[in-house]
């Protein structure tokens, strides 16, 4: 999963109306990329879950058990996600 071509060669910032979502571990492996680009014109974390789940139904079960990080902080479903926000999906952790 290192140096994914779609991550290395794509722009650092999404185009207007798009959002980059950073993926990790099994979720990144399922999608085949560490970064998912979705249509986005603003909304909440709950909206984001809906859009990601619709675009990538294969990760739905893991997404249901995952947390969302917005701007470096764990977010709740009513947290606002602006266009261009720094967003990551955190699947259940297993460090240690």
């Amino acid at each position: 999963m290192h140096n994914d071509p779609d991550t290395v060669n794509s722009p650092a910032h999404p185009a207007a109306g798009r959002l980059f979502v950073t993926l990790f571990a099994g979720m990144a492996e399922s999608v085949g990329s560490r970064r998912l680009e979705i249509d986005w014109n603003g909304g909440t974390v709950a909206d984001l879950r809906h859009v990601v789940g619709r675009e990538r139904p294969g990760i739905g079960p893991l997404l249901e058990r995952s947390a969302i990080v917005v701007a470096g902080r764990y977010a709740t479903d009513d947290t606002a996600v602006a266009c261009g926000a720094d967003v990551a999906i955190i699947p259940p952790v297993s460090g240690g």
Partner: protein
Amino acid sequence: MPTQQTAARSADEPGFGPRPGESGGEVCRLVRDPIDGAAVLAAVAAVAAPEAGGNVLFLGSTRGVTAGVTTLGLDYEAHEPLALAMLRDLAAEAVRRFGLCGCRIVHRLGRVAVGEASIAIAASSPHRREAFAATEWLLERIKTTVPIWKCEEGHDGVRSWVHPGDMRTGLGGGE
């Protein structure tokens, strides 16, 4: 226990001593090279002396066999900025909660071969009970809350990411 001389030398090693802007009491690192547990313990003991009377080191390492199933190795990855921030918060809370003199947390990323350490937690306190309790407390919270993941490679070469629990309704983490 390391001698005072050993402790002083190890505390200067890159990785386990405080960097500019860090408290000397709590130091957390994400590393890609093998963890030298003795150096981690020596670093925390050096900072904590002379108040410390109990210095505990926990090393978590890759098991080669789990319930009869062979593991060839583990690969770890993390949301590094968030993981490091959370480790620092946990270490600071452990110092407050258990009255520690010092605390070190080092988690390895990348490939960790069987027998090698993936995590080192060192706690130093005036008395042993608090150091043992803090180490256990920290490990449980790291395993269930900090965004670090392991991928197991089985004896047949099949790799599988480990995603136990539920980050929304409870916590992640497992054995």
